[in-house]
């Protein structure tokens, strides 16, 4: 057999895993494909209807666009973290092939989630644009940067969750529930400046709130960034989380792989 470089092996393993994951997701049940679009859409329909009935829309931006810009990234981050958490368990039998490492599974799942979310986002985004909403993104560079920062943070958090779930399996349910409060506390469905300032000071510890707000600020021209929200904080959080996650991975890697 021809010798392959480590990079080549990693690349082919990740590619193989991505195809396998995709097949697992869409292969057998057609509902899998429907659900990825339906999930953000159902959120948008329900919340959009409520806001319409309350007629509380803000004049400076369209509420549905506002919702999409918060929901799509947030659901992507949630799925990355939760999928990474489950990836060790799901791929355990594959670690008998020595080329396949837990890290490959992490990368593969992140890529799969990113691809699926991007397609979903594009479909909804195009639909909104076609319907006549003003969906232009004011600062595409900052927008992309904020989204990728969120992915990097979620990747690290997901690995950390995977380590925790492997060490204490009972935590699994609790960890997957953490995204319920985060959904409400990250300003996904409402602008955070509606909340009392005394609460926001505490909420600002949550990096997802920063990320979502930064994405929106990059989208809308007249969106007022909440004071205290900054790229700097998210970058710091990402560095700390990445360091903790990769260190934990290095220490626990062989435990993850053993049957």
């Amino acid at each position, binding site marked *: *057999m021809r010798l392959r470089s480590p990079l080549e*092996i990693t690349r082919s393993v990740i*590619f*193989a895993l991505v195809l396998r994951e995709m*097949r*697992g997701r869409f*292969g*057998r049940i057609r509902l899998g494909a429907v659900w990825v679009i339906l999930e953000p859409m159902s959120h948008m329909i329900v919340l959009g209807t409520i806001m319409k009935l309350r007629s509380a829309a803000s004049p400076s931006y369209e509420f549905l666009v506002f919702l999409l810009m918060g929901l799509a990234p947030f659901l992507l981050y949630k799925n990355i973290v939760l999928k990474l958490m489950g990836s060790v368990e799901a791929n355990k039998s*594959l670690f008998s092939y*020595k080329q396949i490492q837990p890290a490959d599974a992490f990368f593969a799942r992140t890529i799969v989630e990113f691809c699926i979310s991007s397609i979903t986002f594009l479909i909804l985004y195009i639909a909104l644009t076609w319907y006549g909403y003003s969906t232009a993104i004011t600062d595409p560079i900052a927008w992309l940067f904020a989204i990728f920062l969120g992915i990097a943070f979620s990747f690290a958090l997901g690995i950390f969750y995977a380590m925790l779930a492997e060490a204490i399996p009972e935590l699994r349910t609790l960890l997957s529930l953490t995204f319920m409060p985060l959904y409400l506390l990250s300003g996904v469905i409402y602008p955070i400046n509606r909340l009392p300032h005394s609460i926001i000071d505490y909420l600002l510890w949550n990096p997802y709130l920063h990320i979502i707000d930064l994405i929106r600020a990059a989208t809308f021209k007249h969106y007022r960034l909440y004071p205290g929200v900054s790229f700097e904080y998210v970058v710091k959080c990402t560095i700390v989380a990445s360091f903790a996650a990769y260190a934990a991975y290095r220490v626990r890697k062989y435990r993850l792989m053993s049957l």
Partner: protein
Amino acid sequence: MFEVRNITKSYYTPRGRRYVFRDISFSIPPDRNIGLIGKNGSGKSTLMRLLGGADTPDRGKIVTNKSVSWPVGLTGGFQGSMSGKDNVKFVCRVYGAVGPRMSEVLQYVRDFSDLGKWFDEPVRSYSSGMRSRLAFGLSMAFDFDYYLIDEVMSVGDSHFKKKSNQVFAKKNENFQHHLGQPLNGRHSSAVQLGLARRERHYNNV
């Protein structure tokens, strides 16, 4: 040639750390088929996992310049909802067998495993015998210097057994070898250190 240098391997259990090996060193000479013999739980499978690189020792090193297969007959890696063909494709991609080489492997496995139409059905619908035949055929489709066999020769009917013995005899002539746990202890005569002996052909298994 394998050189095992001072390896220690332990596992955590709810009752604390259990040592499987403590500072063992040995070398396996080249051009030999090796059978591992020992009581249940004495670490045969663990040693094979270590030699195959599927597991890593706590301390120490295993050095080899040969290619080693995954455990022959590994069925755990199959995804039930995917067809046998897609599972084979997955392993091909992992091992870098793409393009024409992949079609070659697919053809080989299809012929060898005798699955016929079932090759395109989901693996979850297979019987355990069919599953093992698929796994065995898949391992044989790749050319390794060493094959790791963990009590796998018991699979299949007599026809399949004959076929698998033939393929092993042929691989032996090509200086490819196997390391493994022989079935029902027929090789338990010459034993050294729980490791075993030279066998030119494995056809009496």
